[in-house]
């Protein structure tokens, strides 16, 4: 690998990391604003212009706070748990393409950190299932019964919903015939009947719906936030965390929300494709501008899906534990399985 390649890679990682961290901080603000609007309130509007600096004030508060570790906690794991959570939320960004490849001074730049990874979706599923460790270890190492209950609940929940999540993607993968995320996005760039974008959400609506619900469960967000369930479990797995370590969990939660939204945008909503717009001659000729447009389209789709996450959280009450398990195993799992089988049969029928 040349030095220039390493430099470009480092720049890509640097930009993605910082955009992600600042984006997560701003999603916190956005969530507070949107929840306020839903509840006929105004929301934070004191720090900066209309509260635009509120997230920095929040982060500063968390950094300044004392980090308290309970005496009976397992010191090593207590330290490790928030790091696992945030590390996974960051690591998954490596397979997501932000824009199509473009050429600058004879050098092709691919706006993916790990371009052309043939096992992209497998990596996504594998890494996101590691997320359960962060929460379970946090609950266990705190040596607090509420934390432990929260950790166990979340372990059971995440493992149950991972099945449906994986199965919901199988139909999509069969249609696309590839596990390479970049290739999946490229395949979604055309049109049906000349106007409808070739997005997977139109081919696999049931798969998308199941993936969406499973994504809510995987990120431990309402209506599936049983892992924290304030009324029952104090704060669940992060009861015994304070200061910056709590901040890491907080950031991890919102980071996961952005990540899942970006994933859904990539896999089901055509990724960076900006339908109709990117076919204009102006964008076809100017590759760099087209990349900018595509980054904008990708960000917009992700933003809309983040909005859905927040909107659902402030509309729907939390599920009871048995209802959660019923939904996961008796409803979503069979539907996902049926969806995968039906897709396979239909595809075989079309091809033969």
């Amino acid at each position, binding site marked *: 690998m040349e030095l220039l390649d390493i430099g470009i890679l480092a720049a890509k990682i640097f930009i993605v990391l910082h955009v992600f961290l600042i984006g997560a901080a701003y999603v916190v603000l956005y969530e507070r604003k*949107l929840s306020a*609007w*839903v*509840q*006929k*309130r*105004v929301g934070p509007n004191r720090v900066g212009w209309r509260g635009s600096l509120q997230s920095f004030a929040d982060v500063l508060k968390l950094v300044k706070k004392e980090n308290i570790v309970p005496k009976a906690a397992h010191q090593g794991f207590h330290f490790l748990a928030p790091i696992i959570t945030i590390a996974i939320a960051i690591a998954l960004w490596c397979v997501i393409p932000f824009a199509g490849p473009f050429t600058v001074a004879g050098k092709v730049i691919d706006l993916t950190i790990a371009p052309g990874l043939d096992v992209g979706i497998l990596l996504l599923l594998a890494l996101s299932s590691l997320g359960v460790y962060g929460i379970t270890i946090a609950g266990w190492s705190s040596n607090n019964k509420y934390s432990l209950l929260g950790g166990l609940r979340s372990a059971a929940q995440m493992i149950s919903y991972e099945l449906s999540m994986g199965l919901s993607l199988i139909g999509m993968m069969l249609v696309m015939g590839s596990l390479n995320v970049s290739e999946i996005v490229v395949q979604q760039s055309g049109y049906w009947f000349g106007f409808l974008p070739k997005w997977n959400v139109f081919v696999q609506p049931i798969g998308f*719906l199941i993936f969406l619900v499973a994504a809510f469960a995987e990120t431990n967000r309402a209506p599936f936030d049983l892992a924290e369930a304030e009324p029952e479990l104090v704060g669940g797995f992060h009861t015994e965390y304070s200061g910056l370590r709590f901040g890491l969990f907080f950031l991890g939660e919102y980071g996961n929300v952005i990540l899942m939204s970006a994933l859904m945008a990539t896999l089901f909503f055509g990724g960076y494709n900006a339908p109709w717009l990117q076919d204009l001659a102006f964008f076809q000729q100017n590759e760099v501008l087209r990349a900018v447009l595509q980054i904008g389209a990708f960000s917009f789709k992700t933003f809309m899906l983040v909005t859905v996450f927040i*909107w*659902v959280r*402030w*509309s*729907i009450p939390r599920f009871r534990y048995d209802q959660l398990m019923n939904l996961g195993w008796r409803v979503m799992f069979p539907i996902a399985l049926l969806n995968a089988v039906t897709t396979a049969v239909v595809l075989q029928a079309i091809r033969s």
Partner: protein
Amino acid sequence: MAIKSVQAKQVKQLNFWEKLYLPEIARGLTLTFKQVFTPKFTREYPEERFIPAGSYRGRPVLVEEENGERCVACGLCSRVCPAIAIEVQAGETTREKERYPSKFEINMLRCIYCGYCEEVCPEEAIVMSKDYELVFTNVEDAIFGKDRLLMPVSQLQDRLEFLRQYRG
């Protein structure tokens, strides 16, 4: 009498669409979405203050007229106060109204804003004001003497009018 066991019944039978969850969830989401565009309920407090009606029981104050306070230091408010927040010491003058409070202190940490002092006062000398912004940084600050308790009668017209109506 034998206790009958009662079979718990599901009160509402859900129909097919309700069992599907999704239409109902969509209904809930539209409801919350509509709220985003309704007028906000928040009062932007330091800029936009709450102005109470005459019936509001804020911090108790002593009514001040042109020639000093109305209070004659009878000590009834101090006796009736359930929180023992009021301390009165009487003094004498050569004026027509012979008695006046040489010391009148209300401990605002004890005061419970019940309004008994106002109700018991024969002279309508202590009334509840509209002042609700009470902030102190130490215990000494919370004991209000005559300097902070006296309020000109012109500022208390709403309350006095309310008391007149209320007492009939």
